[in-house]
């Protein structure tokens, strides 16, 4: 899923400064699953904002509405009535949600309440970690299901750099060395010989480097 984290309250206050009516909108997708921008988080942030403006003695109206997914047009359009009423739309969706609301409501001023971090997984309650670099051409079959593109700090494709020590990356002792993980797993699976092949330069044109990407499937189109 796409993992995001709420911006600090002070920053959010700056983003909506001066608005008399704010539509705070959540998303029922990934951000609900990891509790960053679902219905519950929308209500918590709304309360914080109301409390803040009450203390400041500034009148403000916070409308709240969470849609099933901010990344699909039919759900985003459900926001139309509230968007009309608000001076600012504060989205608690990921970066996709923010943009998709803006795209669907050309006259709305849409701002993000979250910082979108990565495509990742839940390691344990309250801990999420990056797992996919969205590079457009998956090579996980070569590396035992562990991605060096995103999990190696240097995206090395041919083994660990000299900064791998005791299983950790030199960039941060909290980061596992992806190549230590790959090496150990390939060894356990009896496939270490696969790592002896020289992996040629990657075709980054399949990734964001080729320009913004689009997927089209004729079989899904009417």
């Amino acid at each position: 899923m796409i993992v995001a984290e709420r911006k600090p309250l002070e920053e959010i206050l700056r983003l909506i400064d001066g608005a008399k009516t704010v539509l705070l909108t959540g998303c029922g997708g990934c951000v609900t699953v990891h509790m960053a921008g679902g219905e519950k988080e929308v209500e918590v942030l709304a309360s914080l904002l109301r409390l803040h403006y009450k203390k400041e003695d500034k009148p403000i109206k916070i409308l709240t509405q969470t849609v099933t997914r901010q990344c699909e047009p039919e759900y985003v359009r459900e926001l139309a009535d509230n968007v009309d009423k608000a001076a600012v739309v504060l989205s608690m969706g990921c970066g996709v949600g923010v943009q998709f609301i803006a795209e669907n409501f050309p006259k709305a001023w849409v701002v993000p309440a979250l910082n979108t971090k990565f495509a990742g997984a839940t390691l344990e309650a309250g801990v999420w970690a990056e797992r996919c670099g969205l590079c457009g051409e998956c090579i996980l079959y070569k590396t035992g299901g562990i991605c060096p593109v995103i999990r190696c700090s240097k995206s090395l494709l041919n083994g660990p750099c000299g900064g791998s020590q005791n299983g950790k990356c030199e960039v941060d002792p909290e980061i596992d060395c992806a190549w230590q993980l790959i090496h150990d797993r390939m060894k356990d699976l009896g496939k270490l010989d696969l790592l002896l092949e020289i992996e040629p330069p990657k075709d980054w044109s399949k990734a964001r480097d080729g320009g913004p990407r689009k997927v089209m499937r004729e079989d899904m189109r009417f």
Partner: protein
Amino acid sequence: MKSGSNLEKVLTSGQFAVCGEMGPPQSADGKSIKKKAEYFRGYVDSVNLTDNQTAIVRLSSIASAHLLLDAGVEPVMQMTCRDRNRIAIQSDVLGAYALGIKNILAISGDHQKFGNHPQSKNVYDIDSLQLLQILKNMRDEKKFQNGEEMKVEPRLFIGAAANPFADPFEFRVLRLAKKVKAGADFIQTQGVFDVPRFKRWMEMVRDLGLPEKTFILAGIIPVRSVKALQYMKSEVAGMSVPDELIERMSKAAKPQEEGVKIAVELIQQLREIKGVHGVHIMPVMWEQVIPQLVEQAGLLPRPRFEEEQTTPAKEAPAKG
């Protein structure tokens, strides 16, 4: 001869090679390179110019290498994959060769987190192994990475780094073999303090027959204080510094002299190891030590070769 560089001549003639290393200045002070060249000229066979090492902005390794060449010392230009994509790398390699640079060391480069611009974006379009392969193909096949041909190829002596002290230990040698396969003519290792571990690594290197396929230069870092040793032990990933050495240095009345003595002993021990073809001395900010260190290690005089007319790059004959 692949490149006809001095380093290549020393190594292929079977003599024990001595490389130095210099960090370019953090300013536009090109003169400092010529000044530091005095510590190396006649004492080493070639000198590495680091490429923004530890991700700190410095005078470029290409310009530094050219200045050093002007000062009569043969450069080994380092090239990292951190700051350039394959377009810039190949372009800079052509430029470096056109300026007379014949040795290039391909490395992945220190992560920008350690430098003075930690908020920068890194590139890593290719890794050091792929860079080796690109350099080899440019030289031997006259081909760019995309397969297109070039008229005049860079005749380079291609180097790579190896760290016998990093993990996973057993994979280190396999990775070295990969680097040799990719095109490494010579290898420079991380600084060696832990000789027993280095010996174990060399045993594995010999088992794979690598000293017959590439030249291995063992790394030497002369230190002048116990602090430097302690720093390397605790702060530098992939360094192994035995406690005995730290104790010896902390007890030394004259730490500078002791530092030279330790480096001399290390050079002598490494020289005895089968498959070690030379040393690579990295006198981090202590270049003045080079003359006495090389002399005391018994590595003088350095071999000299007749100044032969190195084949100037010729236009490829027209086909057809």
